[in-house]
């Protein structure tokens, strides 16, 4: 295991539609909330990590912090899981003692936000954009039909992923969508990119979150300490068309194997799970990549109720990107929910989640990070 803890974790005061907040403001509000959650002051922070825009320099400068370690890893929505892993390495090496990791994104209102269409000379600009790709809904979704043909996943099972997660969201006052939905509702919602209907695609929201990571030697100082038992990271492809096998994510699998090995756990130890769900097929790929079910079984596993309230494997208990919030880089919210669950303070609290696993996706099956979190060290 690593020898670090998450000592503080918080989101912005509100998430959802925040036209009065810029991207940077969301970072800063989340940062101050996480510092306060840990019972620290900003002067205690000597390391900082965030994605490349606005970047660690801007965030540290705005907070009046001069860190002695920084990380600007920006590999999509899983970046914050990688920041935790990199912070663990830095703390274990003595390069920093207390690291602040921030996320903020004005994904819906686009205030102070930057957009990067693929440059027409980039590989994606030459070999994907000319075919009418319009962001993630039209590209991240392409592998699903192949999976459906190879493994018999039905349209109804894919729709049920959204149904199961709405059942968690119904218990969470901060979730954007809480009204119950049925498979018929999902299949009757507007077609976005066949086979994906609107309710099988994530929300687009504004919000932020932040974490404080420090040495496990200090765990007694932090009542909300959550141990980082294992971490993993991997990558697969910069373009969806070049994913090696459209029915499985190599990055999910390798990141998961690394994290489970470091934590010395098996799937049988896991009581709570977060899988980055930008679209309804991701929990299917994630459950199989981590080994919770055999190849081809995840759709039925979810449709049989195993991952919803009352099921054996509580999954995406905040409602996920499909119902809770999705700013664009959702990974931070998955981590914060796992911390809340392990602490026992989640809106839809599950029973004794001694070990929680967070699987993050970056880009479109481009990168992955996995964290194994626990109330106690192992």
């Amino acid at each position: 295991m690593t020898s670090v803890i998450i000592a503080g974790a918080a989101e912005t005061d509100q998430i959802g539609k925040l036209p009065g907040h810029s991207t940077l403001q969301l970072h800063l509000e989340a940062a101050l909330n996480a510092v306060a959650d840990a019972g620290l002051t900003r002067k205690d922070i000597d390391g900082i990590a965030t994605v490349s825009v606005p970047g660690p320099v801007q965030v540290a400068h705005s907070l009046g912090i001069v860190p002695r370690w920084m990380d600007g890893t920006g590999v999509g929505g899983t970046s914050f899981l990688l920041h935790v892993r990199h912070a663990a390495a830095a703390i274990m090496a003595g390069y920093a003692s207390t690291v602040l990791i921030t996320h903020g994104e004005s994904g819906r209102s686009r205030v102070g936000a930057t957009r990067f269409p693929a440059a027409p000379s980039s590989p994606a600009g030459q070999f994907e954009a000319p075919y009418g790709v319009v962001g993630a809904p039209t590209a991240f979704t392409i592998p699903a039909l192949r999976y459906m043909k190879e493994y018999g996943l039905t349209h109804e099972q894919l729709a049920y992923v959204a149904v199961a997660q709405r059942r968690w969201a119904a218990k969470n006052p901060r979730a954007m969508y809480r009204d119950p939905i049925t498979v018929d509702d999902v299949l009757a919602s507007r077609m976005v990119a066949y086979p994906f209907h609107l309710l099988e695609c994530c929300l687009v929201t504004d919000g932020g979150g932040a974490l404080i990571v420090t040495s496990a030697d200090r765990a007694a100082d932090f009542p909300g300490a959550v141990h980082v038992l294992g971490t993993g990271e991997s990558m697969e492809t910069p373009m969806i068309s070049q994913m090696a096998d459209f029915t499985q994510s190599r990055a999910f699998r390798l990141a998961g194997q690394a994290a489970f090995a470091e934590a010395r756990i098996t799937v049988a130890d896991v009581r709570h799970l977060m899988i980055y769900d930008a679209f309804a097929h991701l929990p299917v790929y994630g459950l199989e990549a981590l080994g919770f079910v055999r190849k081809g079984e995840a759709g039925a596993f979810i449709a049989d109720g195993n991952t919803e309230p009352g099921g054996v494997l509580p999954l995406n208990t905040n409602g996920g990107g499909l119902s809770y919030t999705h700013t664009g880089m959702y990974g931070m919210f998955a981590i914060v929910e796992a911390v809340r669950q392990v602490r026992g303070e989640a809106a839809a609290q599950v029973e004794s989640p001694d070990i929680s696993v967070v699987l993050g996706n970056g880009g479109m099956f481009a990168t992955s990070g996995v964290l194994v979190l626990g109330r106690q060290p192992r």
Partner: protein
Amino acid sequence: MAASEKAVPVPTPETQPFWDGCAAGELRIQRCLDCGKPYFYPRPVCPECGSAKVEWFTASGRATLYSYVINHRPARGFEDEAPYAIAVVQLEEGPRLMSNITGIPNTPEDLVLDMPLRVTFERRGDLQLPQFTPDAR
């Protein structure tokens, strides 16, 4: 909408031979001279074995439909075609590439995975863009 509004690729030195091939009506891709592996997208190093000894060759242009979505929210320049398929096709030689599917209605009933396809070329800006269409073989 004018096709000129659709995204136009800008070749780079390592991709120019691919686009030159398209202009000549050929789908040229690369293969490794050490391990023999054909690959796409254009790059100077074999992704299989790391060798820099690679060559261009003309692929057969035959492919099958590997996967797709049917996009209902058109990109710029695609307004008159929506809903349209954004597909990934698998070349006979192994590599895959993105394509639209032309010459056939873009419906789930008409677009059957693994159906045979062949390359065609469509003018895009000053380039010829590879596209795939059903192949009666």
